[in-house]
């Protein structure tokens, strides 16, 4: 989780990622951020996040994103 927070903070240092639950709904992350984030995640976690996983429920909070990564790791 700490690694993921680090990646997110690197993307937007001004956002309180630990408590934010509307990263997509509140338009904090845009499509460019999401794609950059996916590249960073694939570098660090060895999972592949594909287009069909890009839905607000998976990206609205750091917790949701972490759960997605765990799920994909389990599937692999």
């Amino acid at each position, binding site marked *: 989780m700490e690694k993921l927070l680090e990646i997110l903070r690197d993307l937007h240092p001004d956002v309180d990622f630990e408590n934010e639950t509307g990263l997509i709904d509140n338009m904090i992350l845009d*499509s460019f951020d999401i794609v950059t984030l*996916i590249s960073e995640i694939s*570098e660090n976690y060895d999972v592949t996040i*594909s*287009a069909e996983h890009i839905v607000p429920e998976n990206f609205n909070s750091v917790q949701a994103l972490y759960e997605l990564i765990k799920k994909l790791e389990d599937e692999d």
Partner: protein
Amino acid sequence: MLFTSYSFIGFILLLVPVYYLIPRNRQWWLLLFASCLFYCTFDPSYLIYVCLTALTVWGCAMMIRMDQKTQDDYLKERKEEISKEVQKAYKAQHKKIREMWMILGVLINLGILVLVKYYSFFFGHGIKGLGAPLGISFYTLQALGYLIDVKRGTVDAERNPLKMMLFISFFPQVIQGPISRFKDLSETLFSEHEFEWKNISFGFQRVLWGFFKKLIIADRIAPVVNTIVSDVSKYRGAYITAVLVLYSLELYADFTGGIDVTIGISQMLGVRVTENFDMPYFSTSLKEYWRRWHITMSQWFREFVFYPVSTSKPIQGISKFIRKRLGNKGKKIPVYLSSFIVWLLTGLWHGASWTFIVWGLLNWFILMVSEELEPVAAKFHEKYAWSNTKWYKVFTWLRTLLLIFVLNLFDCYRTVGETFSALWSILATANAKVLFNGEILKLGMSGLDYFVILAGAGILFAVSYLQTKKGSVREFIAAKPYPVRFAIWFVLFITVLLVGAYGIGYDASQFIYNRF
């Protein structure tokens, strides 16, 4: 049958009462019949293309659904008997089958689109007897979006092929969008609707507002723009400056006006259609503009091209390769590469010509440069307090508006060379006097016409501003005492009737986006 024609108004006046009089479970049948009739008024043979798209997409989506069911049933029955590895292999095998059906549907429909719209661009000559049906670019994207959504499992496949036909051919939106998602449109398109006065009155008000934009502003400007862009060697310098402003106003009034009519008519029928604009000319950056202009198209390209391409193995592979050499500097490579493909396709989607391709790639270039300069801009705003004031925001708004005006000019000329020549002449030709010595009044618009469009633009601005402050303007007016709201809508109705060219010699132009 243009939205602003007498025949369309008669068509709606007949359709709406019948729609609410027939049994409610037959309403969607009537919409399907009306949609086919509407489409046939352009050319009955075009209906074959729409049927072909509806049938192929429906068939492929059903095959995906059946395969998913086969997989789920099999795994449910044998969950205890087979190992996780076998389950995984079985799922992967079926995922491939579903992918194959999706690809088949996409290829068939893109194939039709390429044959009728792009063949002559790529091969220099068209195919005899094949013409591009109206709205093919819109309904093809809508149909493919549905198919991909079914494959992703975000919507259930529609079992009734006639409902699929209605989803694709729904007459208010078939020729110029918005490009609706199945989950958004189907909810109200196939459901039963009771007569509600609010739907009729609010829908009619929206249609009236659309007519105001189209007939009073867009159609009035069109002759001047057409004259000026018809001869780049004759009309240069100040004429082009005038066109920059006039065409962007025309495009806005034309496209948003058309969508107002679409949403208004749909509301009268109880159908909710997605909004396509969010006051785009108030944007303070190009990125923001593309979040607010033609929203459904941008969303479509983001969901179905940008995300799949940027997360694809080849693009992620290139990204990893570059990052090994450049480090963190290469982290935005997937964004830049995928955006390039998106903007190339967005340009091509607008039309089979180099002007649209260059327009798309210019958008891409500006967006990517802005993205790369974002950290510099952040430091700039941190260092200089005056860059955070209201006046600086006005400056960024005007700067964005100018950029949009210049990009919009690529719609106007036949070739890229002519467009750049016209743009260059703004700086190179000193003929500002033509704007004041009466020459500009000889191109199809009188002084009174200029006054009308100036007043019209002022009203557009005021209404949009009111919208930012009060939300829905129709709700705002509806809350006023009866005489006030009656007066407002009556004046708008009379204005459209008298100033909106419904008089002698009425000849409304086709909507600009009908040709895309």
